[in-house]
């Protein structure tokens, strides 16, 4: 099955770490509010500007840091694809596992200006700039990972196979 995403590009530079996407202070918030602090320390107000279907392009070592669920945060913000010069391995799995396709694509920063429209074919590893023209090869997403994305992520897979309950446990707040 193909996995193609098209959308408006947001550009971020090198060394964007997990704590910038989900600061520790967001951990105790309800899930529907956690994403409101995404990039607040470096780009206040971004959460209100981004819309569903947008694409995030990062620089080198994108997503370096902790196991905190930054893929889910970006997904809740509306991001539907992530590309970077290089993506941290833990960040990559935290994206794939919540059905947010992400791919390493050296040279991608130079191909786009912010606001351009990108078309990304994850299975073939092709990235196009539909606004200005030009395309580039990425490192294609292996079939097993495309399958996880297409299945709706790990939780959906585990629910479907009867391994876990269908609703999350929520720790009491008061």
């Amino acid at each position, binding site marked *: 099955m193909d996995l193609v995403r098209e959308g408006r590009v947001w550009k971020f530079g090198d060394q964007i770490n997990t*704590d910038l996407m989900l600061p520790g202070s967001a951990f105790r918030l309800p899930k529907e509010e956690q994403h409101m602090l995404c990039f*607040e320390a470096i780009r206040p107000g971004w959460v209100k500007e981004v819309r569903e279907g947008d694409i995030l392009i990062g620089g080198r070592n994108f997503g370096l*840091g902790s196991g905190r669920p930054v893929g889910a945060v970006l997904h809740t913000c509306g991001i539907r694809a992530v590309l970077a010069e290089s993506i941290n391995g833990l960040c*990559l799995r935290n994206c794939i596992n919540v059905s947010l396709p992400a791919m390493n694509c050296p040279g991608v920063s130079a191909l786009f200006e912010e606001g351009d429209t990108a078309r990304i074919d994850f299975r073939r590893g092709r990235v196009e700039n539909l606004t200005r023209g030009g395309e580039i090869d990425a490192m294609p997403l292996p079939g097993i990972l495309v399958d996880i994305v297409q299945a709706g992520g790990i*939780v959906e897979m585990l629910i479907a196979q009867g391994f876990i309950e269908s609703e999350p446990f929520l720790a009491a707040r008061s």
Partner: protein
Amino acid sequence: MGATIIEKILARTSGAAVVGPGEIAVCRPDIVVQLDMPFYVDGFWYRPKKVYDPDRIAIIFDHGMPAPTIKEASGMAEGRRFAREFGLKHVYDFGRHGISHVVAAEKGLARPGELLVNCDSHSCAAGALNCAARGAGPLDALQAMTQGLVWYPVTPTIRYEFTGALAPTVSGKDVFFHIAQVYGGHSNMSVEFGGPGLAALAMNERRTIATMCAEIGAEFALFEYDAITAEYLEGRIDRPAEPVAPDADAEYADRRVIDLAEVEPYVMLPHAVPNNGVPISRFDREVAIDQAFIGSCANGQIEDIRIAAGIVAGRQVAPGVRLIVTPGSQDIYLQAVREGLVETLTVAGAVVTNSTCGACLGYHMGVLAPGEVCLTASTRNFKGRMGSSQAEIYMGSPATVAASAIAGVITDPRGSIAGTA
């Protein structure tokens, strides 16, 4: 063509004869370590209907232990319920707790040649014991506990060959900083450590280095197994070790030689680790600090606390500086009490805390205010990591942090040890 350490472990656990870069290995973990945090961060705990093997799941409470708010308390109660429901074999709850990577090493859960799954990013700590682990996500841990499967990309490996031996007051932390400074990020690369210098590199230094490899984005970080590994594991593991060595003709993306004798103490500057450090002899700014922290999975070991106590003994922490020391586990805390280290630190004006991840991630027990400056021997210096995003976090070795806490400014520990600071 031969295989690297990680290629061999991923091949065995995925049931393949060989694996190579570019492949995804779907593996059966030897042990899964579950922390407290997934039980209380919304959306990451779905109660399992079955587990794949209750003897291969360990629960270790660390990030919010003991509970700072009702949310953590409620999450940990759920963790205890889960452990009881399935009769999990390894439970390190209140009183036996500690930072998961430290406890996993101490209690023999991280075993040579095996594959350990833990959702925390510093799981690569196990690599010091020749055990393959990388930070997985909370959902990977859930899949590993229930289905007994977890996926890994097989990446190219960079081989570091150590030669020589560390100079006094230079630590494994500085070796890591040197690698981060000279070679930068290692995204989509695994690293392997070996060479003749390994024989002179103590286990605590190896554990610091392996743990910190998360900060250069390494996929896996693995040390070769040797007599020092065997000595550390003596009495800790309940079955014979099955260490994995690389083949002589293993293929590496690069081989880099590091002369340990040439490494000097570093200071890492705020907000990022790769390519963001300065050898301390060239750090010419006077930076006053508000907080000094020694702890975390990287530097909460007994050796780190001995270094801190040795430097502050008979002196006083500078006025206005908060020196916080957090042992990595209850076992280490007890050892520090028995050796008199807690007394020495307390007399000097430091605070020795309960064993927890705590201040390292700005969660509790040492959160920074806006405008404050911290020098830390923990894992990260990201903006906002230890509290306010308006705080600045410098990093150094435990010796550098302790010496700086006495001086009140970031200081070369080598003068301090000689008694000239």
